[in-house]
Protein backbone atom coordinates (compact mmCIF):
# COMPACT_ATOMS: atom_id res chain seq x y z
CA UNK A 1 0.00 0.00 0.00
CA UNK A 2 1.29 3.46 -0.91
CA UNK A 3 2.15 5.76 1.92
CA UNK A 4 -0.43 8.38 2.79
CA UNK A 5 1.34 11.74 2.89
CA UNK A 6 1.57 12.03 6.66
CA UNK A 7 -0.26 9.02 7.94
CA UNK A 8 0.64 5.44 8.08
CA UNK A 9 -1.04 3.12 5.59
CA UNK A 10 -1.08 0.33 8.17
CA UNK A 11 -2.78 2.57 10.68
CA UNK A 12 -5.33 3.58 8.05
CA UNK A 13 -6.11 -0.03 7.15
CA UNK A 14 -6.43 -1.01 10.79
CA UNK A 15 -8.98 1.74 11.26
CA UNK A 16 -10.99 1.34 8.07
CA UNK A 17 -11.10 -2.45 7.66
CA UNK A 18 -13.48 -3.12 10.59
CA UNK A 19 -15.78 -0.38 9.29
CA UNK A 20 -16.10 -1.60 5.70
CA UNK A 21 -19.27 -3.63 6.18
CA UNK A 22 -21.07 -0.73 7.90
CA UNK A 23 -19.69 1.66 5.28
CA UNK A 24 -21.04 -0.54 2.53
CA UNK A 25 -24.44 -0.84 4.25
CA UNK A 26 -24.59 2.94 4.63
CA UNK A 27 -23.57 3.39 0.99
CA UNK A 28 -26.28 0.94 -0.02
CA UNK A 29 -28.89 3.07 1.79
CA UNK A 30 -27.56 6.19 0.12
CA UNK A 31 -27.38 4.81 -3.41
CA UNK A 32 -30.02 2.06 -3.32
CA UNK A 33 -27.88 -0.08 -5.59
CA UNK A 34 -25.25 -2.66 -4.70
CA UNK A 35 -23.02 -1.66 -7.61
CA UNK A 36 -23.24 2.07 -6.84
CA UNK A 37 -22.63 1.30 -3.16
CA UNK A 38 -19.40 -0.55 -4.04
CA UNK A 39 -18.25 2.44 -6.11
CA UNK A 40 -19.14 4.85 -3.35
CA UNK A 41 -17.27 2.90 -0.65
CA UNK A 42 -14.19 2.72 -2.88
CA UNK A 43 -14.34 6.43 -3.60
CA UNK A 44 -14.82 7.28 0.09
CA UNK A 45 -11.96 4.98 1.13
CA UNK A 46 -9.62 6.60 -1.37
CA UNK A 47 -10.67 10.11 -0.36
CA UNK A 48 -10.22 9.23 3.31
CA UNK A 49 -6.79 7.74 2.58
CA UNK A 50 -5.66 10.80 0.66
CA UNK A 51 -6.87 13.06 3.47
CA UNK A 52 -5.77 10.84 6.35
CA UNK A 53 -3.27 13.46 7.45
CA UNK A 54 -6.18 15.75 8.33
CA UNK A 55 -7.75 13.15 10.62
CA UNK A 56 -7.15 14.13 14.22
CA UNK A 57 -5.85 11.13 16.14
CA UNK A 58 -7.97 10.30 19.17
CA UNK A 59 -11.18 11.60 17.57
CA UNK A 60 -13.97 9.47 16.13
CA UNK A 61 -12.63 7.82 12.95
CA UNK A 62 -16.00 6.28 12.11
CA UNK A 63 -17.74 9.68 12.21
CA UNK A 64 -14.92 11.14 10.06
CA UNK A 65 -15.13 8.32 7.51
CA UNK A 66 -18.93 8.35 7.34
CA UNK A 67 -18.87 12.14 6.84
CA UNK A 68 -16.56 11.62 3.85
CA UNK A 69 -18.83 8.88 2.53
CA UNK A 70 -21.98 11.01 2.88
CA UNK A 71 -20.27 13.97 1.18
CA UNK A 72 -18.98 11.71 -1.59
CA UNK A 73 -22.52 10.46 -2.13
CA UNK A 74 -23.64 14.07 -2.62
CA UNK A 75 -20.98 14.71 -5.25
CA UNK A 76 -21.64 11.35 -6.93
CA UNK A 77 -25.29 12.34 -6.96
CA UNK A 78 -24.40 15.63 -8.66
CA UNK A 79 -21.96 13.93 -11.03
CA UNK A 80 -24.61 11.49 -12.21
CA UNK A 81 -27.07 14.34 -12.62
CA UNK A 82 -29.64 12.03 -11.16
CA UNK A 83 -33.04 13.53 -10.58
CA UNK A 84 -33.69 13.84 -6.87
CA UNK A 85 -36.22 11.32 -5.71
CA UNK A 86 -39.49 13.01 -5.01
CA UNK A 87 -41.48 11.03 -2.55
CA UNK A 88 -44.71 12.78 -1.72
CA UNK A 89 -45.01 11.24 1.71
CA UNK A 90 -47.31 13.42 3.72
CA UNK A 91 -46.93 13.39 7.48
CA UNK A 92 -47.66 10.04 9.02
CA UNK A 93 -49.35 9.71 12.36
CA UNK A 94 -47.65 8.45 15.51
CA UNK A 95 -47.53 4.66 15.94
CA UNK A 96 -48.40 4.10 12.28
CA UNK A 97 -47.42 0.44 12.11
CA UNK A 98 -48.89 -0.32 15.50
CA UNK A 99 -52.28 1.18 14.66
CA UNK A 100 -52.45 -0.37 11.21
CA UNK A 101 -51.33 -3.79 12.46
CA UNK A 102 -54.10 -3.72 15.04
CA UNK A 103 -56.67 -2.55 12.50
CA UNK A 104 -55.63 -5.43 10.25
CA UNK A 105 -56.10 -7.86 13.14
CA UNK A 106 -52.45 -8.91 13.23
CA UNK A 107 -52.35 -8.88 17.02
CA UNK A 108 -54.44 -12.01 17.26
CA UNK A 109 -52.87 -15.21 18.49
CA UNK A 110 -49.55 -15.43 20.23
CA UNK A 111 -47.50 -13.77 17.48
CA UNK A 112 -46.05 -10.36 17.90
CA UNK A 113 -47.36 -8.08 15.10
CA UNK A 114 -44.04 -6.17 14.79
CA UNK A 115 -42.15 -9.42 14.28
CA UNK A 116 -44.84 -10.73 11.94
CA UNK A 117 -44.66 -7.75 9.60
CA UNK A 118 -40.88 -7.26 9.62
CA UNK A 119 -40.23 -10.99 9.59
CA UNK A 120 -42.14 -11.27 6.33
CA UNK A 121 -40.22 -8.47 4.66
CA UNK A 122 -36.89 -8.77 2.85
CA UNK A 123 -33.91 -6.57 3.55
CA UNK A 124 -34.54 -5.01 0.11
CA UNK A 125 -38.01 -3.91 1.28
CA UNK A 126 -36.44 -2.14 4.26
CA UNK A 127 -33.87 -0.45 2.03
CA UNK A 128 -36.63 0.52 -0.38
CA UNK A 129 -38.55 2.10 2.53
CA UNK A 130 -35.51 4.10 3.68
CA UNK A 131 -34.84 5.13 0.10
CA UNK A 132 -38.36 6.47 -0.22
CA UNK A 133 -37.79 9.09 2.47
CA UNK A 134 -37.02 12.68 1.55
CA UNK A 135 -33.21 13.19 1.47
CA UNK A 136 -32.76 14.87 4.87
CA UNK A 137 -34.78 12.18 6.63
CA UNK A 138 -33.19 9.37 4.64
CA UNK A 139 -29.68 10.30 5.74
CA UNK A 140 -30.56 10.53 9.42
CA UNK A 141 -32.59 7.31 9.34
CA UNK A 142 -29.91 5.42 7.40
CA UNK A 143 -27.33 6.30 10.06
CA UNK A 144 -29.74 5.62 12.91
CA UNK A 145 -30.83 2.19 11.72
CA UNK A 146 -27.35 1.11 10.70
CA UNK A 147 -26.54 0.50 14.35
CA UNK A 148 -27.32 2.02 17.71
CA UNK A 149 -25.92 5.49 17.24
CA UNK A 150 -26.28 8.43 19.62
CA UNK A 151 -27.95 11.55 18.23
CA UNK A 152 -24.70 13.45 18.88
CA UNK A 153 -22.70 11.10 16.67
CA UNK A 154 -25.23 11.44 13.83
CA UNK A 155 -25.01 15.21 14.29
CA UNK A 156 -21.20 15.03 14.07
CA UNK A 157 -21.31 12.96 10.88
CA UNK A 158 -23.86 15.17 9.12
CA UNK A 159 -22.52 18.40 10.65
CA UNK A 160 -25.95 19.50 11.78
CA UNK A 161 -27.25 20.41 15.27
CA UNK A 162 -28.44 17.62 17.59
CA UNK A 163 -31.88 19.21 17.71
CA UNK A 164 -32.14 18.85 13.94
CA UNK A 165 -31.16 15.17 14.19
CA UNK A 166 -33.85 14.64 16.82
CA UNK A 167 -36.62 16.33 14.84
CA UNK A 168 -35.66 14.67 11.52
CA UNK A 169 -35.43 11.31 13.19
CA UNK A 170 -38.78 11.64 14.90
CA UNK A 171 -40.52 12.55 11.66
CA UNK A 172 -38.38 10.17 9.59
CA UNK A 173 -39.32 7.21 11.78
CA UNK A 174 -43.00 7.94 11.32
CA UNK A 175 -42.59 8.30 7.55
CA UNK A 176 -40.53 5.11 7.46
CA UNK A 177 -43.25 3.17 9.25
CA UNK A 178 -45.80 4.42 6.77
CA UNK A 179 -43.54 3.52 3.87
CA UNK A 180 -42.88 0.04 5.30
CA UNK A 181 -46.59 -0.54 5.70
CA UNK A 182 -47.30 0.57 2.13
CA UNK A 183 -44.54 -1.69 0.78
CA UNK A 184 -45.90 -4.61 2.81
CA UNK A 185 -49.38 -3.94 1.40
CA UNK A 186 -48.11 -3.59 -2.19
CA UNK A 187 -46.23 -6.88 -1.90
CA UNK A 188 -49.31 -8.68 -0.54
CA UNK A 189 -47.51 -9.33 2.74
CA UNK A 190 -50.30 -7.84 4.85
CA UNK A 191 -53.00 -9.73 2.95
CA UNK A 192 -51.14 -13.01 3.52
CA UNK A 193 -50.64 -12.24 7.22
CA UNK A 194 -54.31 -11.36 7.58
CA UNK A 195 -55.28 -14.70 6.02
CA UNK A 196 -52.94 -16.55 8.39
CA UNK A 197 -54.29 -14.60 11.33
CA UNK A 198 -57.89 -15.41 10.32
CA UNK A 199 -57.00 -19.09 10.02
CA UNK A 200 -55.59 -19.12 13.57
CA UNK A 201 -58.77 -17.54 14.94
Amino acid at each position, binding site marked *: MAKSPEGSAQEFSALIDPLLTKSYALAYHLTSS*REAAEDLVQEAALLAFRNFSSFQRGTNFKAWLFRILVNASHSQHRKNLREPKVTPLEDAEDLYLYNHSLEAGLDRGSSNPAELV*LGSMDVEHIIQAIESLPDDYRLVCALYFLEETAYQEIADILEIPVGTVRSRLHRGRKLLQKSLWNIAVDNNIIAALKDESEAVK
Partner: protein
Amino acid sequence: MLLTFYSCRDAIKRLDDFLDRELTETELFRVERHLKLCHSCSKKFKFEQEIVQGIRKKLAQVTLPADLQNKIAFLLETDGENKDII
Protein backbone atom coordinates in the same frame (compact mmCIF):
# COMPACT_ATOMS: atom_id res chain seq x y z
CA MET B 1 -41.60 17.94 40.88
CA LEU B 2 -40.91 14.19 40.78
CA LEU B 3 -44.51 13.52 41.71
CA THR B 4 -45.79 14.93 38.43
CA PHE B 5 -47.56 12.11 36.65
CA TYR B 6 -47.30 11.64 32.91
CA SER B 7 -50.48 11.14 30.91
CA CYS B 8 -50.50 8.67 27.99
CA ARG B 9 -50.01 11.62 25.65
CA ASP B 10 -46.97 12.84 27.65
CA ALA B 11 -45.47 9.35 27.57
CA ILE B 12 -46.05 8.77 23.83
CA LYS B 13 -44.53 12.17 23.08
CA ARG B 14 -41.32 10.87 24.65
CA LEU B 15 -41.39 7.42 23.08
CA ASP B 16 -38.54 7.94 20.59
CA ASP B 17 -36.26 9.62 23.13
CA PHE B 18 -37.03 6.83 25.59
CA LEU B 19 -36.05 4.13 23.11
CA ASP B 20 -32.88 6.02 22.20
CA ARG B 21 -31.90 6.69 25.82
CA GLU B 22 -32.05 10.42 25.23
CA LEU B 23 -34.41 11.32 28.10
CA THR B 24 -33.34 13.23 31.19
CA GLU B 25 -33.35 11.27 34.43
CA THR B 26 -36.57 12.91 35.56
CA GLU B 27 -38.32 12.22 32.27
CA LEU B 28 -37.10 8.63 32.29
CA PHE B 29 -38.42 8.12 35.82
CA ARG B 30 -41.81 9.51 34.87
CA VAL B 31 -42.08 7.48 31.66
CA GLU B 32 -41.08 4.27 33.42
CA ARG B 33 -43.60 4.93 36.17
CA HIS B 34 -46.30 5.52 33.57
CA LEU B 35 -45.43 2.30 31.75
CA LYS B 36 -45.70 0.31 34.97
CA LEU B 37 -49.27 1.49 35.38
CA CYS B 38 -50.44 1.67 31.77
CA HIS B 39 -50.71 -1.63 29.91
CA SER B 40 -51.80 0.06 26.68
CA CYS B 41 -48.75 2.38 26.49
CA SER B 42 -46.48 -0.41 27.62
CA LYS B 43 -47.67 -2.49 24.63
CA LYS B 44 -47.06 0.42 22.26
CA PHE B 45 -43.56 1.07 23.60
CA LYS B 46 -42.70 -2.61 23.29
CA PHE B 47 -43.99 -2.67 19.71
CA GLU B 48 -41.94 0.38 18.72
CA GLN B 49 -38.81 -1.06 20.35
CA GLU B 50 -39.30 -4.28 18.39
CA ILE B 51 -39.72 -2.32 15.16
CA VAL B 52 -36.40 -0.50 15.68
CA GLN B 53 -34.62 -3.72 16.65
CA GLY B 54 -36.27 -5.62 13.79
CA ILE B 55 -35.17 -3.06 11.19
CA ARG B 56 -31.61 -3.10 12.54
CA LYS B 57 -31.58 -6.89 12.51
CA LYS B 58 -32.74 -6.96 8.88
CA LEU B 59 -30.18 -4.36 7.83
CA ALA B 60 -27.43 -6.35 9.54
CA GLN B 61 -28.00 -8.92 6.79
CA VAL B 62 -26.28 -6.60 4.33
CA THR B 63 -22.85 -8.13 3.95
CA LEU B 64 -19.70 -6.83 2.35
CA PRO B 65 -19.24 -8.10 -1.22
CA ALA B 66 -16.55 -10.76 -1.18
CA ASP B 67 -13.92 -8.87 -3.15
CA LEU B 68 -14.60 -5.29 -2.05
CA GLN B 69 -11.99 -5.28 0.71
CA ASN B 70 -9.37 -6.52 -1.77
CA LYS B 71 -10.44 -3.95 -4.34
CA ILE B 72 -10.00 -1.18 -1.79
CA ALA B 73 -6.61 -2.50 -0.68
CA PHE B 74 -5.49 -2.56 -4.31
CA LEU B 75 -6.87 0.91 -4.92
CA LEU B 76 -4.93 2.31 -1.98
CA GLU B 77 -1.77 0.44 -2.95
CA THR B 78 -1.85 1.85 -6.44
CA ASP B 79 -2.86 5.35 -5.37
CA GLY B 80 -0.17 7.69 -6.59
CA GLU B 81 0.47 5.50 -9.61
CA ASN B 82 -3.10 6.00 -10.81
CA LYS B 83 -4.45 9.27 -9.51
CA ASP B 84 -7.24 9.22 -12.12
CA ILE B 85 -8.57 5.83 -11.11
CA ILE B 86 -11.78 7.37 -9.75
